[in-house]
């Protein structure tokens, strides 16, 4: 067991974990934050995307011990109280989700995408979402959602 401490969604957490505990396991099993999902085992689907120190990462491809001392944000920490993040609102307004399973990772990636590209073109959005797979929407409304949110976040 190795002890880890980090800030998750603004709260500091401490735990003893086996070194082979993935960050996603720590988030889901230790912290019971089950909004972060696991959709594959080869680090491609992006359903597990969270922010570590502000950058999007795949929490299935990072050990909990590697996040020691980090500031982690999951989908549960994106809204401010009852005020949804503009990206969350945009996904709802533009029907950017269907089954909802990829959605938390998609939203977390999209927030990072807009941070890096404040006024993304449709092409940029499609390219930058390479690390997130959705099987339901055909991406059409996801792209629309991200574009909509980027305009509101920049405005």
């Amino acid at each position, binding site marked *: 067991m*190795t002890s880890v401490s980090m800030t998750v969604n603004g709260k500091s957490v401490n735990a003893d974990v*086996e*070194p*082979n505990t*993935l960050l996603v396991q720590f988030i889901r099993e230790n912290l019971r934050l089950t909004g972060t999902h696991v959709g594959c*085992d*080869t*680090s*491609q689907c*992006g359903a597990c*995307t969270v922010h*570590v120190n502000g*950058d*999007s*990462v*795949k929490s*299935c*491809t*990072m*050990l909990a*011990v*590697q996040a*020691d001392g980090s500031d982690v944000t999951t989908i549960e920490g994106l809204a401010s109280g009852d005020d949804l993040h503009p990206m969350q609102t945009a996904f709802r307004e533009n029907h950017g989700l269907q089954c909802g399973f990829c959605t938390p990772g998609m939203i977390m*990636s999209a927030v*990072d*995408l807009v941070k*890096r590209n404040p006024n993304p073109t449709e092409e940029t959005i499609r390219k*930058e979402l*390479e*690390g*997130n797979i959705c099987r339901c929407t055909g991406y059409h409304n996801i792209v629309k959602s991200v574009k909509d949110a980027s305009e509101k976040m920049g405005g």
Partner: protein
Amino acid sequence: MYSFNYERPSGINDAAGAVGEDDKFLAGGQSYLPTLKLRLAQVDKLVDLGGISDLKGISVSGGEISIGAMTTHGTVATSSDVRSSIPALADMAAHIGDAQVRNRGTIGGSIANNDPAADYPSALVALNATVHTNKRSITADDFFVDLFETALEDGELITKVTFPVPQKAAYAKFPNPASRFALVGVFVAQTTSGARVAVTGAGPCVFRQSDMEAALSGNFSGAAVKGIQTVADKLNADIHASADYRAHLISVMAARAVDAAS
């Protein structure tokens, strides 16, 4: 994942001293952690290099860019130093994996792994880079030995990679449609000592296409290489592409890279 021990030293010497015969350095972990997750590898101890600040960062001096081993692809892709000196290198880094992978994956981890479909090896070879370790300096030509094999000895730790600034360079990648690794990637560079063409994805290990280099020496244009075929015998063949197709793509990607070089 099988069980393992974990250590996170803060200095290069500590790290080198911490790694035993059945241990591994952990850099960004974007290739190695998936391997562990699928139980395709077992390790006694992971020595995490993430706590060593000396291994991170980019600097430019004397016509050379130096990139610390633990510098992420995302950092290289967006570095103004890299963008202004060797834009092709930043562009190559921007095409590795996806945004999340680029936020974790590192240059040192990528080249130490030497995946035959990785992008970085082609950049190092084409740009005639030098790999610096805690023990020595190794030219890129000597560093990449074979499939997942490098010149690194047990316990040897990459500290940084230095790239001489070329006259011009470019990378053209044809991604595997599924994994998005390079099915064929060609990095070309015009340097003071001639043209260099490095091919990744197509063979068991990055290699230089000497016929193309010769052709480019007199005429650095896409037209000069488009007709040059690579012998398919030793190229990879799998469900995504035959060796013949890969050979053809080398010519196409090389020509596109040359024409795009800046």
